[in-house]
């Protein structure tokens, strides 16, 4: 197996995630696209761990999974709060800090 086939898969998924974050209007969809980007990073971590024969790659992938879980918890709580205050989860409505 080529090293690049895994890295390119990760890069493609990351770019799809970037598109999702920038183009989607629904805040929950934006959070899901962020998950996609974090997963793309994870596959790079694991494949480089295999490549250099160290276990640290897997350990860091596990840490990223834990941080992603925490991020989703807080992110969805913020989205719920926004929905309660604005009755909308369209990210284009949230321009309260616009000067």
């Amino acid at each position, binding site marked *: 197996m080529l090293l690049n086939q*895994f890295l390119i898969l990760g890069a493609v998924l990351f770019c799809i995630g*970037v598109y999702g974050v920038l183009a*989607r*209007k629904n805040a929950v969809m934006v959070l899901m696209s962020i998950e*996609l980007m974090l*997963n793309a990073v994870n596959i790079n971590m694991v494949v480089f761990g295999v490549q250099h024969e160290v*276990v640290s790659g897997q350990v860091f992938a596990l840490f990223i*999974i834990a941080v*992603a879980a*925490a991020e989703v918890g807080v992110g969805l709580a913020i989205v719920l709060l926004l929905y309660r205050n604005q009755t909308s989860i369209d990210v284009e409505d949230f321009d309260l800090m616009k000067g």
Partner: protein
Amino acid sequence: MVAQNIAFGIISGIVVLSALRMVTTRNIVHSALFLVAVLAGLSGQYVLLAAEFVATTQVLVYIGAVMVLFLFGIMLTKAPIGKSMQMTGTQWPIAAGVALMLGAVILYSLLDQFGSERVTEGGKIYRTADVGDEVFSTYIIPFEAISVLLLAALIGAIVLARKD
């Protein structure tokens, strides 16, 4: 090696197509289910790379816990289920341009740097026990920090979402 490459090709095809549908479909519940397909496919890739514990954790944490959280988020925000809402903003061509340019830069640098380098084969395979040893020896302080982070996220989520 041939079998692994075939498995990689099939799983990657499913993963990339599901990811594309995830960011383009107009039904938000379908989007969440396509994300499940992506996560399951990536779990398969970890198995191909002999990272068994990461694959298991991917299934347990992402498909088990995070996706349920997302489905609850979709349900509680009463997102219009079906094709009623315009899900993609008007700036989507710019977003597609940014993503394509980023992809081109990353692809160029990857091909330039790694070319036809191969994944180390027949190297040491790290089992779950090795991962556990490493987490509880070298990475014990980051592990404790993650524990505190999860506690803080738990309390933060409760404080934010509480009604009063």
